[in-house]
């Protein structure tokens, strides 16, 4: 009996000891769900595992966008903290860094500078230290259904000014077609229109100055004028019926089902419009056009300025060395071009634009490349709290529930409360 116990204990101890003999590292990668992203990153991770035997990469993409954002703070403070997390940079990233959850990977900066476009990489720097790297660039633009706009007698690609855009909207509406699909239920689709108007009227320093309290902070007339222009658009009633209650995915699906002429969205809508459409296939890519957001006459912003994301990964504080190596690996042209070729996203890695087979993504990448100013999404730049207020007020202005002045005041109050 004693022998059996000793034997069992001995076996148990050996089993406990064996992991240290094998020396396996696991890198846990977590991001918000997206089948195309998951497929391409899984393939990059598989290559990384082959190139680094003994390292495994586990991917967790189970949480949808909002759920991921909601759960991340708790996860970062628990022992289940992932090693590499998806990030939109901006205010939330700064909060995470200030709380000490993100690793300083400035040591890898030289390597990363060779791989990633400098402007994009700097989005992941705070106070001169590097904490992660962008993987994809995205662009908000006007996506239009070529057939429907032709039917209405409008050529969106020729639009240059805001007034011309409003005219086009009126013409499309007169032809009995919904001019602009809007996922007002999720609020942020409206926020991006407001953001672009602020950019076009205020110029590159507009957000920086507002945050620093210069030029009247958020009460700067630019914010109020931009709000008035947003109201102008909403007064034309360009959105589909019930837009206030429709979340973003169905609105993308509607675009895929040709239920509206245009949708102002990010490059990801190309996948979303087919994923969420009734047929599952969406519009034929040849039928979709991309136009830049129009300029506002007299505004300080250039027509080439772009609003979009610099989404990527951050390395968390307790991550193994392999995590940083994996991030560099994903940025190499051989890996990044997988995303370009598959039309999954526009990689921020240098030398990959040529691989973008999808002409729309190539056009978007070109627009970002030519932009003197690529602004991160406002609600990311401003952080979680003020960002949500911006979402609220954008919809409130469009629905006529708030005046542009009240909206600017609400933003200023929310910023002051931080």
């Amino acid at each position, binding site marked *: 009996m004693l022998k059996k116990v000793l034997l069992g204990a001995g076996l148990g101890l050996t089993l406990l000891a064996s992991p240290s003999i094998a020396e396996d590292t696991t890198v846990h990668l977590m991001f918000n769900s997206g089948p195309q992203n998951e497929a391409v990153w899984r393939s990059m991770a598989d290559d990384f595992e082959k190139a680094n035997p003994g390292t495994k990469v586990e991917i967790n993409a189970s949480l949808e966008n909002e759920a991921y954002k909601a759960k991340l703070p708790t996860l970062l403070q628990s022992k289940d903290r992932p090693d590499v997390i998806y990030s939109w940079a901006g205010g939330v990233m700064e909060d995470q860094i200030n709380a000490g*959850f993100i690793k300083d990977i400035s040591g890898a900066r030289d390597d990363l500078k060779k791989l990633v476009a400098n402007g994009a990489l700097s989005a992941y720097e705070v106070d001169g230290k590097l904490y992660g790297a962008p993987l994809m660039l995205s662009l908000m633009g006007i996506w239009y259904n070529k057939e429907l706009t032709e039917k209405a007698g409008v050529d969106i690609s020729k639009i240059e000014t805001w007034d011309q855009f409003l005219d086009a909207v009126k013409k499309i509406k007169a032809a009995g077609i919904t001019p602009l699909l809007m996922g007002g239920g999720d609020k942020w689709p409206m926020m991006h229109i407001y953001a672009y108007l602020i950019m076009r009227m205020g110029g590159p320093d507009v957000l920086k100055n507002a945050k620093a309290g210069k030029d009247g902070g958020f009460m700067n007339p630019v914010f109020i004028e931009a709000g008035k222009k947003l109201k102008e658009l909403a007064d034309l009633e360009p959105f589909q019926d019930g837009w206030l*209650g429709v979340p973003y995915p169905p609105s993308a699906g509607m675009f895929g089902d040709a239920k509206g002429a245009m949708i102002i969205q990010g490059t990801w809508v190309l996948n979303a419009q087919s994923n969420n459409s009734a047929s599952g296939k969406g519009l034929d890519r040849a039928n979709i056009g991309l136009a830049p957001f129009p300029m506002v006459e007299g505004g300080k912003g250039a027509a080439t300025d772009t609003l979009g994301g610099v989404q990527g990964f951050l390395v968390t504080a307790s991550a193994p060395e392999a995590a940083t190596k994996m991030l560099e690996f994903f940025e190499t042209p051989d890996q990044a071009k997988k995303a370009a070729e598959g039309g999954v996203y526009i990689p921020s890695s240098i030398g990959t634009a040529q691989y973008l087979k999808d002409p729309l993504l190539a056009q978007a990448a070109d627009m970002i490349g030519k932009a003197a100013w690529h602004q991160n999404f406002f609600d990311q730049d401003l952080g979680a709290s003020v960002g949500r207020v911006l979402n609220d007020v954008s919809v409130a202005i469009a629905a006529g*529930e708030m005046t542009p002045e009240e909206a600017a005041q609400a933003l200023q109050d929310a910023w002051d409360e931080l």
Partner: protein
Amino acid sequence: MSVTSAVTGSRSTNTRSNLTTVLVFLPPALVVFTIFVIIPIGEAAWYGFYRWNGLGELNRYIGLDNYLSLLTNKVFIQAAINNVWIIIVSLGLQLPFALAMAVLLADRRWGAVTFRMIFFLPYILADVACGLIWAFMLDGLFSAIIQWFGGEPYFLLADRQWAFTGVLIVIMWKYFGFHMMLYIAGLQQIDRSLYEAAAIDGANAWQRFRFVTLPGLGSMIRLSVFFSLLGSLQFFDMIVALTKGGPLNSTHTMVSFLYYFGIGRMKVGFGSAVGVVLFILCASVAFGYKRIFMKDD
């Protein structure tokens, strides 16, 4: 002497074995209750005095500011009003309707059991699934039907004025089955001979209901009102699935307000303050109601 000492002796062993039972079973329950209920409540009360984003250090003490700002927060006030509406509709419409159905279905008539099951079915559905299905119906199917009849499509859940009415309809549909089952159970316990006696005394159907059924159901009604009150105050899951608090923050309840404006905006201190307010409200209602109305049950 022998009898008294025998009595005292057996009583003291009884007390001793009772004490042992208590000492064995109470600590685990107390420990679990303390860890998962008392401590979080205490922590929430503590966080409520701070401005905290949930990530970094707890170092921005602001005293009662979170609580004071609630008093002037338009969305919170609307959310509280919404909660009151849920209570009014539940107590005024849903429960009487459930009672009427219960009276109809309490006897083992033909079809009664089938209908009991049908009416109870909504309660079994998960709140979130329910909300998603109804959102699809109210904002999709019904509009399509209206269009088919030649009308303008109408989106109830996108209408600032009427979206909450839509929510109330779904609440009524979902929970009346539960209360109906409670009443049926209560009705089946009322002595049949009381009805016969009343009938012999010349009472008509309404009088039998008022003087035999209602008093007999008294404790069940009080219990069902209790569940309804607490459930109304804590209503959350379906709001998220149906409207996410929209359109324009008109359909929030206090709990969904806590989630979207507290945790969702990384204002954990503020959210904790809302949580504490909710806790005090629910605890007062629960204990107050039990004291006043359920004293003799």
